[in-house]
């Protein structure tokens, strides 16, 4: 089932004293449920802009972008926010945990924007999620009391707590040592597989990229498929 469909997507930004800058040009991409996609590219190649588009944080300048067959450009801002909260989970390089909040409160944060059972049972759901990533004994710990690997595991739990169908990981191991990075990626793969979510990873690290089944390269805003490994 197609989750994301991009066809001829471009993203340009208006500069004040210069002609418009094209960051992404003619991007065609299809992400299906359960896909493992890695996107590599040099700094400034447009990786983060593409991730923002995929995560509904930004709108394409032109082209077609469908999320579950719905054109995202026609969605209202609020509808896009709600769709993002429900279907997309972000894992950031710098973890982006909320300071001053415990691990449990951080994981509960996305559930504050949910409805029904997810909202009212948020403490229990968040606790179960933290137990799944092996932090059942660190529920009350503040981020500055956790190691880098533990912080990223909290971030993973937070990204997955609403059961998204698309996980977007932006350099998820960039701030971790090699060994911890491997462990974290194993965890992301495992949790994504269990939940059946698609995983799109942006990375510089060839070893991390090699874990995916589809390998894409962004070069000067143009997306190229480099290889596909049979699942």
């Amino acid at each position, binding site marked *: 089932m197609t989750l994301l469909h991009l066809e001829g997507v471009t993203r340009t930004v208006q500069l004040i004293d210069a002609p418009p800058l094209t960051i992404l040009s003619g991007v065609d991409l299809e992400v299906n449920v359960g896909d493992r996609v890695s996107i590599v590219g040099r700094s400034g190649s447009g990786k983060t802009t593409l991730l923002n588009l995929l995560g509904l944080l930004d709108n394409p300048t032109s082209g077609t972008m469908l999320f579950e067959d719905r054109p995202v450009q026609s969605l209202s*801002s*609020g509808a896009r926010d709600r769709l993002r909260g429900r279907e997309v989970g972000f894992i950031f390089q710098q973890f*982006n945990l909320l300071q001053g909040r415990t691990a449990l409160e951080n994981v509960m944060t996305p559930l504050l924007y949910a409805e029904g059972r997810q909202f009212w049972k948020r403490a229990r759901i968040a606790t179960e999620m933290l137990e799944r990533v092996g932090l059942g004994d660190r529920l009350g710990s503040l981020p500055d009391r956790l190691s880098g690997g533990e912080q990223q595991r909290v971030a993973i739990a937070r990204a997955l707590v609403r059961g998204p169908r698309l996980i977007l990981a932006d350099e998820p191991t960039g701030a971790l040592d090699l060994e911890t990075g491997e462990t974290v990626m194993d965890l992301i793969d495992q949790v994504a597989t269990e939940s059946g979510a698609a995983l799109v990873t942006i990375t510089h690290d060839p070893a991390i990229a090699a874990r995916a089944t589809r390998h894409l390269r962004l070069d000067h805003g143009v997306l190229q498929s480099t290889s596909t490994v049979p699942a």
Partner: protein
Amino acid sequence: MKRVVSNLVGAVIEAWQEVRIHKTRVMLSLIGVAVAVCAITTVVGLGGVAQQATIEQSERSGGRAASLYLSASMNDGSTPTGMPEIWRTALERYQIDYASRVVNTSQTVQFADGAVPVQTIGVDPPYGTMHRITLEEGTWFTDGDQTRLAPAVLINSIFWDRLGRPDLRTHPTTTLVGERTTTAVVTGVYPSLSWETEPAMYMLADALTAISPVVTDPNLQQFGPPSYELWVPVDVSEQLVTALQRDVQGALGSDAFVQVNRQDYAAYQNGDPYLSLKLTVGAIAGLVLLLGALGLVNIALVTLKQRIREIGIRRSFGATAGRVFFAVMMESVVATVVAGIVGVIAAVLIVKNPIVENFISQGQVADFPPFPVEAAILGLVCATVVGALAGLIPALVAVRVKVIDAIRY
């Protein structure tokens, strides 16, 4: 509907977390708000006590609302002889329980250092309730005192001092000098007013007239004929004035001059006498509240800069712009409501403090009013409004944050 409820609860939870995490900052920014709310609430609360003090003071001298005064005299100035019967009939007809004759006279009293004329007021037992008379010692007249062989007297504290402040349990007596000397029993002592310098006393009207009969000849009268007082419901007071005037005039005939009118404080008073004071202090408290709100806006804007990344992260997890706006505004509202509650609690502690109560009432209040609920509500409403207004600007700034930039801030 489900979404509205969870959004509302979620925003309040977010706001409370924010207030809890940044409690030092929040507390510092809210001191002004708490002080202003406390001031506004205290002013309204103490205003109520001061107003009650004034009312009770007025009621002691002029009677409670509505007090009717009836006077009757013949056209030649003499006292009408049939008045006692006419008075009783009127009270029975209109079922008036609180009524009293008032006879002002001077009674010579024998003290250890000589006989002294003492201002004496002859009354009926309901007079004490009608004029809120409180006693330092003993009890007010009861119907049982009417049948005493030795009349009961209630004396002021100056009188009591001159007697040597005897213990009332020993049934102290005093000698009333007149055509025939009478021994009276002191059954109570009431506090002298601050401007009083001479002894004074109350006696039951019947006992007083028994020892010094009413003088009907106007040339021999020292204090004029007795007057009559009635405490009646305010809403029927005007009809009763007309009815009593008609009945008494009818009973005494055209040779009599009858006057019934209302003379209590409420008959002359329009509105709240403390309104100007309340408005002045309220305006000052309003300015303090405004300054507190400005401090709140200032600190909220400064800290918002530090929170841009957090807002971006929340947006990435599904927080809509409306939700961010509401949550940031709610932070301000939740914080000021907490400050408001603290301010109101402080105001209650101030207003209901016995030292403050005595200072404001100056000993003039017997029935202290409860802490006015409207004052507490006013304080909380002020706090909430200030919180909403102070939260508006930071909330607008928070909504304008670009999510992509905020995440990488």
